[in-house]
C-alpha cells in the first residue's frame, strides 16, 4: 500500500489505490493521530505515556498499563512500527522536550492528549 501525498490545503481525503482505500494526508505533514489511536483508558495500546506526574516523569513512555496514562497504538503499521515510535518517545523524554508543554505546579504537571495527537510526522 502506498501513501500518496498531495498538496491541497492541509485537509485529509481518502483516495483509492489498487490495493484498497488509502488514507492520504494532503498538503502538510501527517499528524500522529493519522497513524495511531491515542487516548487515555486504553488497555490495548502498544505502550503508554505518563500523562500526569513530575517534570521528570511526565511524557515518559512505559510498557505497563495505567488508565491515567495516554495509550498509543499504531494503526498504520505498514508505515510505522510501534517500537520505533516507543523509542522515539524515549528520545523525546530524555531531551526534556515535554517540559515547555507541561501544565501545572512544579510538583505535579500534566500533558494533553491533544499535544500528543498533534505531533507532526514527516515521511522520508
Amino acid at each position: 500500500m502506498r501513501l500518496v501525498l498531495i498538496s491541497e490545503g492541509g485537509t485529509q481525503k481518502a483516495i483509492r489505490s489498487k490495493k484498497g482505500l488509502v488514507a492520504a494526508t494532503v498538503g502538510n505533514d501527517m499528524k500522529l493521530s493519522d497513524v495511531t489511536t491515542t487516548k487515555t483508558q486504553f488497555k490495548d495500546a502498544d505502550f503508554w505515556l505518563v500523562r500526569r506526574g513530575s517534570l521528570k516523569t511526565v511524557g515518559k513512555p512505559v510498557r505497563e498499563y495505567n488508565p491515567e496514562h495516554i495509550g498509543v497504538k499504531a494503526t498504520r503499521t505498514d508505515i510505522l512500527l510501534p517500537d520505533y515510535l516507543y523509542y522515539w518517545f524515549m528520545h523525546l523524554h530524555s531531551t526534556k522536550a515535554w517540559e515547555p508543554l507541561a501544565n501545572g505546579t512544579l510538583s505535579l504537571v500534566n500533558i494533553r492528549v491533544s499535544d500528543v495527537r498533534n505531533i507532526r510526522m514527516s515521511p522520508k
Partner: protein
Amino acid sequence: MKIDLPSIAEQQKIVFELSTQEGINQLNKNLNAPELPGQTEVNEAKYSRAHLLVKDKGFEAPHCDVVGAYFRNFQSHFEQYNTDKTLAVLLGLSSDRRIRDFKQGVRKVPYDVWRKFLVITGRASQEILPVMAFIKG
C-alpha cells in the same frame, strides 16, 4: 515536535539497535539486584532439581510443594506481587486460577512460565541467541 518517519526497513534497524542496547543495560542492571533469603517451607533435597534444567537438558516440571514454596517466598519479598492475580500478570498468565492450580498441583507449570520465574528470581540465566544474519523480508 516532529517525527522523522524513515522506511520500515530503516525503522527495524533503529529498533534493533536501540532494543539491543536496552537489553545490555538491563543485563548489567540485573547484576546489582538485591540478595534475598530463600524459602524455608520445604526441604528441597527431598525433591528433584530437574526443574532448574533447560528444556532439552532434562527439564521436569517442579513438584507443587516446590512451586508453592517458591511462589510464597517471592510474594513475601515483593508486596506488589503478593496476590495470585498480580503474580499471574507478571508471569504472563491470564488468570490467577492458574497460579492456584500450580501451587495445588492441579496443573504442572509449563516450561516457559517456570523458566521466566527462575530468571526473575535469579535462579537461572537468560538465554541470548546469536543473530546469524539479517535476512530481508
